[in-house]
């Protein structure tokens, strides 16, 4: 959170200032949609290390951060990018090779954990997961938790309903709050004070932003200070929670940004091929991240033809008839 009328800065500065090594991090979006990819690539480019990553189903961004070796620990509900990668490939390799510490939750549990952080309460209740191994099997041991003040002492707690049988509920699972050091989001429109207007589904972006100590927003359109005030009910994220606003057209590419562009099936298929093999993966990182000094260079490398193919149809908000 930061209160200032103008928080606009460059992406390199925003990542340098708000995303230190070892940060507890969360990113917005869902599978192949509205991931803050430009910010993810800038993080990889700056060779940040040791993140504790919180994810519900933040597919492509999670997989690239994990694959680039930036992530030490992850709490996650779903590592997949739809049909392009039913299980995220670099994530899967990292887990199977023991290259990452991980702990599993469900999508709703992760959403509630962000919401608890946003609400400033230690936990929220749900019935989700009663009787399952999500409750029984912990990824982080009690000893590990006891040694790290940044982790809750317990993965989850089951509580007998203190209101008797109110709401026909015998017991609930309490899921502990998450307060990321920083949340990265990509949105359609942002104002200089940080106010954001998201088109289409907001996923859990709003909860993730409000839960975080710092928020970095990249946006397709940077609008004037008065431009989002005409219809304030359309602005899901209040400016006060945001620290940095960065104007990054195609900031979600290769994932989709509703009403602007679709996901790029060519890039995501190539990615799958690259991610599957260690040699090709190193080449991918070199060619598509390290060799490109910034988002402008990256978008130039993608080229106008590919970008033209994924332009959103004004009627549907996606690229109608796109070859997928």
């Amino acid at each position: 959170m930061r209160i200032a009328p103008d928080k606009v800065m460059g992406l390199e500065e925003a990542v340098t200032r708000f995303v230190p090594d070892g940060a507890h991090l969360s990113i917005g979006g869902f599978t192949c949609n509205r991931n803050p990819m430009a910010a993810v690539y800038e993080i990889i480019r700056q060779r940040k290390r040791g993140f504790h990553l919180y994810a519900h189903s933040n597919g492509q961004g999670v997989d690239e951060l994990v694959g680039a070796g930036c992530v030490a620990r992850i709490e996650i509900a779903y590592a997949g990018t739809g049909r392009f990668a039913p299980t995220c490939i670099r994530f899967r390799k990292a887990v199977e090779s023991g290259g990452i510490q991980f702990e599993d939750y469900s999508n709703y549990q992760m959403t509630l954990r962000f919401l608890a952080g946003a609400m400033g309460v230690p936990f929220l209740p749900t019935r989700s997961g009663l009787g399952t191994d999500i409750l029984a099997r912990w990824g982080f041991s009690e000893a590990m938790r006891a040694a790290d003040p940044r982790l809750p002492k317990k993965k989850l707690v089951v509580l007998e309903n203190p209101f008797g049988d109110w709401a026909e509920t015998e017991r609930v699972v309490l899921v502990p709050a998450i307060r990321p050091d920083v949340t990265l989001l990509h949105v359609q429109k942002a104002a200089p004070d940080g106010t954001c207007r998201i088109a289409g589904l907001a996923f859990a972006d709003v909860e993730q932003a409000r839960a975080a100590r710092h928020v970095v927003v990249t946006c397709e359109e940077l609008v004037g200070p008065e431009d989002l005030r005409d219809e304030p009910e359309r602005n899901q994220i209040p400016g006060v929670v945001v620290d940095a606003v960065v104007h990054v057209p195609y900031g979600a590419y290769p994932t989709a940004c509703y009403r602007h562009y679709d996901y790029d099936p060519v890039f995501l298929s190539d990615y799958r091929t690259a991610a599957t093999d260690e040699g090709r993966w190193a080449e991918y990182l070199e060619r598509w991240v390290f060799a490109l000094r910034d988002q402008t260079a990256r978008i130039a490398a993608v080229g106008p033809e590919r970008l033209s193919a994924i332009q959103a149809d004004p009627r549907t908000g996606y690229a109608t008839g796109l070859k997928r």
Partner: protein
Amino acid sequence: MEYTRRELMTLAAARKIRDGEIVFCGTGISMLAAMAAKHIYAPNSVIIFETGAVDSRLEEIPLAVGDPRVMYGASSCTGLADAFALMQNPTTGRHVVGILGAAQIDRFGNLNSTAIGEYLHPKVRFSGSGGACDVASFVDRTILFMQHERRKFVKRVDYLTSPGWLDGADGRRRAGLPGGGPEAVITDLAVMAFDPESREMFLEAWYPGGSPQEVLAHMEFSVEVSRARELEPPSPRELKILREIVDPQRLILG
């Protein structure tokens, strides 16, 4: 009329959906089944996605529940918090049918979509729950999609990601879960159901050309087959709508 097993699977699931229901679906064939149901049997069903889209138009098939194709023409688009609350809420949740898939299933319909082998050092790691555990915990009934293979129909799932009937009978109630649970498993060989008392899986129907013996040969555990019959093949109308309206690009039908 010729048809593929995938087409029959889709229709077998779609036939289970009732008019006036809220249909939760994920990606792939479950989305196809929900769309087929809406176009064929349940015109007033409302499709919802865990990402927060309600009554999406689905003019093109989404490849993920986060695909912008679930947003187009929806009656409302919020986010995960609202979508799951709608399922957990007893007023609305009791009208939701969820369609799920998994890597492993046991005889009580418990699902594993997390890992094969030891959780912390898995032989194979999958995506994890996503919203599957939530849906399986909350909604009135679930329809499960599975490939019918011995390694998938197992005596004991390596990791219980999404609750089925747990240890059977009133296991869900004892765990504190609301009523309801798996109603059917749709595979590439058969339709399985669950006994209303014991909650154990049994064979409801095998596919035309198959047999109960073929079904049993593809499972690590045995199930009762005495109630089984041969499944009705797809009608020309079912196939026409499926092929021409639901997935004309054959993105999921293959």
